[in-house]
């Protein structure tokens, strides 16, 4: 199962410290794992803890993306609106291991895709089918880039987050990775397109 999906910055942000990442969209799937721990927490505390965990993941991915780009030495070409496919092709990708307790209670794998200044991260359980997860992440990122016009200067990721929710509800319902052949995928994407058109 996928625990969460994040869209966050992987570039320096002036209002944040070095190495920090601004989470622009986050969706956690399933029940909050804090309710299963022995500690008694109020809903406020649980929510805060969850936000902190997501911030930790975003920071780790930011660091991974930076190091990966440094090592490969590739120059980042700025793709423009309309060039989503190119941006995706040029994107760096990788997977980071999140040890048990850091920050989730079990061991997780954080798959990431770095598209220019944004990172798309999928945190899944360690035993998950990573081939399927990778394909799903790419597909989701492509849709997000297109639907939210992320290659442009707008802030739709903040103001149209419900579109991402609807997208996730079809392609990654409650964190379930789906084995979709092109016909099933087409059918779901038609539904997504219909939603976006409203």
């Amino acid at each position, binding site marked *: *199962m996928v625990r969460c999906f994040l869209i966050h*910055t992987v570039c320096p942000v*002036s*209002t944040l410290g070095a190495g920090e990442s601004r989470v*622009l969209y986050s969706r956690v799937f*399933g*029940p*909050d794992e804090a*309710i*299963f721990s022995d500690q008694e927490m109020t*809903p*406020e505390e649980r*929510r*805060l803890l969850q936000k902190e965990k997501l911030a930790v993941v975003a920071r780790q991915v930011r*660091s*991974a993306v930076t190091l*990966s780009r*440094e*090592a*490969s030495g590739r120059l980042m070409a700025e793709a423009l609106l309309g060039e989503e496919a190119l941006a995706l092709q040029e994107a760096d990708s*990788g*997977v*980071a*291991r999140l*040890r048990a307790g850091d920050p989730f209670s079990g061991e997780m*794998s954080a798959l990431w895709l770095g*598209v220019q200044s*944004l990172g798309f991260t999928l945190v899944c*359980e*360690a*035993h998950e*089918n*990573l*081939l*399927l997860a*990778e*394909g799903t992440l790419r597909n989701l990122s492509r849709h997000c880039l297109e639907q939210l016009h992320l290659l442009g*200067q*707008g*802030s739709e*990721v903040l*103001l149209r*987050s*419900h579109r991402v*929710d*609807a997208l996730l*509800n079809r392609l990654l*319902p*409650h*964190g*379930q*990775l*789906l*084995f*979709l*052949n*092109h*016909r*099933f995928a087409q059918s779901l994407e038609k539904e997504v397109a219909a*939603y976006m058109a409203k």
Partner: protein
Amino acid sequence: MFSHGSESLIKQAREIQESELKKFYSRLIKLLQGKDLSHEAVDSLQRLHLILSANKFITKLSPELHGKVVSLLSSPSEQHQVLSSAVLRETLPPSGQELNNISEKINPLNSHAAALLLSQARSRTDLSSLCAQLLRSLESRQSEGPTHASTHTLPILNTILTHSPECLTDDHVTLLSKKLVDWLRYASITQGSGSSSSGFFTGPRSRQPAPIAELDGTVSGDFFTVLCVGQGFTDDQWMNVYSFSMLRHWLLTYHCVSNGNTTADTDDRSEVDGSVVSMVSATSSSSRLLPPKERLREKAFQYCQRLIEQSDRKAHKRTDVDLQKACLVEAVCMLDCVCVEDASLVYRAFPCIKALFGRLSSDLSFARVLLPIAQFYLNHGEMAAVDCDSVWKLVFDRFPAEMFNDNFLAHELLRFLRLNLESLQLRVQQYTQSFPNLLKLLAWNSPAMVDDFVDLLPSLVTTGTAVELLHTLLDLPCLSATLILQLRSTCMPISEPGGLMSLDAFRNPSFRGLFLFLLRAESGSGDTIERLSTLHDLLSEAVEWPRVVQCAQAVPVLLHIFFNTVVTVANEKLLSHLILVMLERSNLLLDIPEYITETHRVFSCHLLRLCKLHPCLVVDQSRELREFAGTIANVYNQEEIYTHVVWVLGEYLSVSYDSRCSVRLITSCFETLEAVLFEVTSSSTPLGAVCPAPRVITTLMSALAKLASRSHDLIPRVSLFLSKLRTVTRGGPVCWCSDEDDLVSIVTRGEELWSLLKAPGVAQSVLTPPPHVITPKWHRDTNLAMPLQLRALTNLTHSQ
């Protein structure tokens, strides 16, 4: 992409004032009147979501607004459901009463309402009731309405299972097992109506539904799976996809326990006429008699076998090719899981897996599929008495050597090793020999892989490979550079003029041997190369390559782990050899400044530790240590190690630690150190030249004093030097120490030692204390323990 505008939006959302917020709430309540929401209302809801989620602490909605938003959950418009669910997830959970209202009013529960209930669940009880509700609605909607609307049931159940399998009762598990069997094995094999099925020619003449097809276009001849296509899909075909997607997790969670209960199920679809007899498994006819869980396992088995067969077909679309690979991984993992449950299935599964391996082993683009196959072989190969050598050759030889730059494969390979460490160490000989190959994964991408190697390295440290492993770890940055050159060499077959010097060297036949040694796959062909300094010169431009620098940053951590592990397995002979390696390699490292400093620090730390654990090592390697200490250059370029070597010589070269320590040995060591001390503190050092670190000087002085205290003839020589030192420094600044405070410390130290040495007996007990003094156990010693003394005194004084 990420604009200043976004940042300011977030700032606004966070800094919104209470009064502004209240106004916003009342405006929003007005907008939410009526059934249809205007664009403005939708936008405002979205902004509300932004305000709530941007804030670290929970913001409460006004009760009226809260109620309005809750009511949107049951709206027929999906947009309303999405927005209200998103908003409510960011605020306080609904009260118990509200929860009940939601559950009752929204029946069946839509996906977004369910997501809210999931994320706001407070306990296992809440989750259990959610499960019960979902399953009730699943059962009751057997024949009415599109199940498409309830496709979210399986994902929700799956996510609850992940955290809390007990939320499903046994009855639930049985019910679901039966349903899963139906959906997986008995879904329709004809195409559903496509969404655009109605065209100009609708009429009484209804078309015969076409059969489903395989990915290569041929008509499907067996039951429906995720690798089957059609113009449209029926509901149970959708459920087939959702069922398969969660199947492995389900099987892992609910281990099938064969309790001999074989009551036949009479109400399942396999009794229905026309159900497909699978060609995949001829032995399925008797499965009707199995209990539900075992039956599901059998059907899962058949499904996986069918997928493996279907993956051999040539799919037309790229996404389908990728899906076939993912299905292969899933199928093999599931077969593995199922065979672990029921060992009798191994004999049925192995031919299939073996054939798959044969098909894929020569194509490295299927490397990620071959790993689960390797897992299967590891788990069941022994039982089936199958030769696994070709599998291990792939995993330990070809994968690391040819695919080190595939991040995902590297991650999965290391995970495979981590999870099966014990098994591999027992059954696969190649594992511990293959470290030169495995370390390539680290050399290429150290930030991502170092964490895994922290876990794996201890298992690679064996007495047979320790020395070579140490050399290999020290040469990791060189390996990193070599891998870069190897890749560049294949990309640019022709040398360009003015290109990389190191690339030319890589291609030069006379240096081939050096690089080939680094790129070796197995250990055993030698500890290291003779011409290391040549290699370092050839790679001198690589010290600035980021990948090499990142690799160098990971090495010190691994060295620590290496040494911590090696002391637990090595004998003194090996440890002695390792000290030698440390001394040798300390100035034979790739010239990356921080790398050299950190490595020296690690060496110093462990030299100390090793000598403390086994003081006799000092006598063993006294010649090498003395030679190192006698080299003046080391005082300046290897200050850290030098200091520790001198200290170790001073501390442990003593009869009380090793009976082989003769007076001659002590004297010759003394003379070596004395000569160095004279040289570095001589007035002939030109002004402005580099000064030795003060710590070196004090360590040298202390070491000389210690050695002298063991061989009293040497005392006059030390005392003479120390008094001369005092005289010289009184005369003003000296050229070998630039800082006044440091000079004072050095002189003070000198004076302490000088006065100590005036009483040789005292000097000996202070500078070479007997073991029982330095390992005090006052509290354990019955003669000295305070409580006992007090008790004795009390008894004496209160005896009357």
